[in-house]
C-alpha cells in the first residue's frame, strides 16, 4: 500500500479499462458513437494523470530524453519552429491509438531543437514506425523536471474551468497536458479573477445621513404602536432644524426651555396620533408626516410664547429640570416610564405612556444624533435607564456566578473535525472496543493522503480514545 509506484496506477488503469469496456455495449445501445466513450476515457485518464494519485506512475515512466520524432518531409523549420514532442512510455497503454495498439511510439527531439517546442494545429507527424498522428490543437511542449509536471496545478485548474469539449485535447497525448494551450493561460487567470468575489454587503448608509430614516427602519414590523413614534418623531427634526440649536450651555432660559416644550408637544401629538390610529393605517406615511410637521410647527410657535410658564411647572415636577440647563441633561429627563413623579402626565395620558417609553428613548437618540454626540453618553444612559435597575442586577448576578461558561462545549469544532483531506474509504470486518481501547479490522480500502492514493486489502489498527 505504501509503495505507491506502479501497482496503484496499474490498478486504476485496469479499473478504467474495465469500466469503459463494460459500458461500450450500453453506449451502443443508446445510439452513441464510440467516440463518446473514448472521450470519457480520455477525460478520466487525463484527470487521473493530473492528480497526484498517479504522480509516482508518471515519475517512473516519464523520461525526458526518451523522445524520438520524425517530422514530416514537408515540415519546414522556418515556418514552424518546433518539433512535436509527445511524451510516451512503452508501459503506458491508456492513450488510444488509431491502430488500437497498446504501445505508444516514442518521440525524440531532432538534433538542434530544444525545449520549449510549439506545435501548431494541423501538423501531421509520422513516427519511426510509420504511424501518422495529426495534431488538432496547438501544442506547446516544455521539458519538465523529472517526474514533475511544470504546470500541473494550472492544468488542474484549467481542467476544472474549461468548458471546451475535451475531445480536442484528447488528440494530443499526455505531455500536452503539461502545457495545454499557451494562449489560454492568460485568459484563465483573468477568468479566475473575474469570478465574482463575495459581494461586500454595504451597510446602508442612510442611517447616518438623516435622522428620520433609522428611526423609521425599526418600526417596519407590523406592530401598531411602533409606527406612531416614528410618525410623531418626524416633526421633531424639521422643528429643530428651523430653530437654532441650543448650545450645550444655553445662555437664556427661553432657548433652553424650547426642547421641553417640544417634548410636551410631542406627547400631545402622540396622543393625537393614537386617536387617529385608524386613519393612520390607511394613509401614506409621507402624508402623515407632512401633516404632523405642520401641526408641530404651529404648536412650537405657541410653545415659545408659553415657554417660561411651562418651564417652571415642568422643572420642578414632571421632568425635573434644573434652571442651569444643559441640553444633555434634558435628555436625561426624558424618562416617561420611570418613577419620576410624572403624576400629572400619567393622569393625562395613561395610555400613551407605554408608547412614550419608546418615544422617550427615541427622542434621546434623536437629540444625540442632532447634537453630534454631545448627548451621546446621556443617550446611552437613557436607553439603559428604562431597563436600568434590572440590567444592573443581571450584571451583578453574572459577575458573581459566571455560569461555568468554561464548561461549554464549542460546537464549532465539530464540522471542522471531520473536514480533512486524508480519507480512508474501506469496509470493516470487525470493530472492537475495550474501555477506551479500540481495534479496527478493515479491508479493501483506498486511502488518499496528501493527494496521493494508497490501497490495501487488509488493515489492522489500534487506537486509544
Amino acid at each position, binding site marked *: 500500500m*505504501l509503495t505507491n509506484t506502479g501497482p496503484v496506477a496499474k490498478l486504476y488503469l485496469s479499473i478504467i479499462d474495465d469500466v469503459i469496456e463494460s459500458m461500450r455495449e450500453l453506449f451502443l445501445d443508446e445510439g452513441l458513437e464510440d467516440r463518446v466513450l473514448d472521450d470519457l476515457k480520455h477525460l478520466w485518464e487525463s484527470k487521473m494523470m493530473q*492528480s497526484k494519485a498517479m504522480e509516482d506512475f508518471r515519475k517512473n515512466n516519464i523520461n525526458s530524453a526518451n523522445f524520438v520524432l520524425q517530422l514530416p518531409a514537408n515540415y519546414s523549420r522556418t515556418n514552424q519552429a518546433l518539433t512535436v514532442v509527445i511524451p510516451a512510455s512503452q508501459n503506458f497503454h491508456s492513450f488510444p491509438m488509431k491502430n488500437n495498439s497498446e504501445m505508444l511510439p516514442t518521440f525524440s527531439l531532432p538534433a538542434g531543437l530544444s525545449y520549449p517546442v510549439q506545435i501548431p494545429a494541423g501538423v501531421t507527424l509520422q513516427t519511426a514506425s510509420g504511424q501518422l498522428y495529426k495534431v488538432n490543437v496547438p501544442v506547446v511542449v516544455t521539458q519538465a523536471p523529472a517526474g514533475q509536471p511544470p504546470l500541473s496545478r494550472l492544468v488542474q485548474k484549467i481542467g476544472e474551468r474549461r468548458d471546451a469539449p475535451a475531445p480536442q485535447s484528447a488528440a494530443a497525448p499526455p505531455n500536452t497536458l503539461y502545457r495545454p494551450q499557451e494562449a489560454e493561460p492568460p485568459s484563465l487567470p483573468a477568468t479566475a479573477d473575474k469570478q465574482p468575489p463575495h459581494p461586500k454587503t454595504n451597510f446602508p448608509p442612510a442611517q447616518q445621513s438623516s435622522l428620520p430614516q433609522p428611526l423609521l427602519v425599526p418600526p417596519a414590523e407590523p406592530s401598531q404602536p411602533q409606527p406612531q413614534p416614528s410618525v410623531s418623531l418626524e416633526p421633531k427634526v424639521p422643528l429643530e432644524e428651523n430653530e437654532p440649536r441650543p448650545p450645550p450651555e444655553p445662555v437664556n432660559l427661553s432657548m433652553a426651555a424650547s426642547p421641553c416644550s417640544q417634548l410636551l408637544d410631542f406627547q400631545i401629538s402622540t396622543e393625537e396620533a393614537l386617536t387617529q390610529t385608524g386613519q393612520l393605517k390607511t394613509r401614506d406615511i409621507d402624508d402623515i408626516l407632512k401633516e404632523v410637521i405642520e401641526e408641530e410647527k404651529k404648536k412650537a410657535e405657541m410653545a415659545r410664547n408659553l415657554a417660561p410658564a411651562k418651564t417652571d411647572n415642568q422643572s420642578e415636577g414632571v421632568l425635573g429640570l434644573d434652571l442651569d440647563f444643559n441640553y444633555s441633561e434634558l435628555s436625561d429627563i426624558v424618562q416617561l416610564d420611570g418613577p419620576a413623579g410624572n403624576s400629572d402626565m400619567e393622569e393625562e395620558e395613561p395610555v400613551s405612556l407605554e408608547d412614550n417609553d419608546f418615544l422617550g428613548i427615541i427622542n434621546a437618540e434623536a437629540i444625540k444624533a442632532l447634537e453630534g454626540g454631545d448627548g451621546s453618553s446621556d443617550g446611552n444612559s437613557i436607553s439603559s435607564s428604562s431597563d436600568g435597575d434590572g440590567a444592573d442586577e443581571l450584571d451583578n448576578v453574572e459577575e458573581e456566578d459566571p455560569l461555568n461558561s468554561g464548561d461549554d462545549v464549542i460546537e464549532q469544532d465539530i464540522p471542522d473535525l471531520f473536514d480533512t483531506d486524508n480519507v480512508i474509504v474501506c469496509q470493516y470486518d470487525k*470493530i472492537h472496543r475495550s474501555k477506551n481501547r479500540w481495534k479496527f479490522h478493515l479491508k479493501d480500502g483506498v486511502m488518499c493522503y496528501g493527494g496521493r492514493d494508497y490501497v490495501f*486489502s487488509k488493515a489492522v489498527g489500534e487506537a486509544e480514545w
Partner: protein
Amino acid sequence: MAYQLYRNTTLGNSLQESLDELIQTQQITPQLALQVLLQFDKAINTALANRVRNRVNFRGSLNTYRFCDNVWTFVLNDVEFREVTDLVKVDKVKIVACDGKNSNAAE
C-alpha cells in the same frame, strides 16, 4: 449493487467530473452517467477484492467515532501506517467504513 462509497476517491471523483463534462456538452444523458457510476462501483469493488493483496497496520489516537446506518466514521490523530518496510505518519485521518460482511448491499 456494490458499495458506492468508493466514488469519493480520486478515481471516483475524476470519473464523476468527466461525466459531468459530457453531460454539460450533452454528449450523454444523466441516466447513462448513472449507469457508468454503477458500473464503476462494481469494477472497483471487484478490483479491490481480487487484485489487491497487501496488508497494512496502523496505530494512533482516536479523536471521534461515529456509527450510523451501519457505517463507521472515525477520526484519528497522529497515526502511523506501517507496511512491511514503509512507514507513513499522518497527523489526521478520517476513516469511513461500510460493513464488509454485507458487501453486496449498497451504501
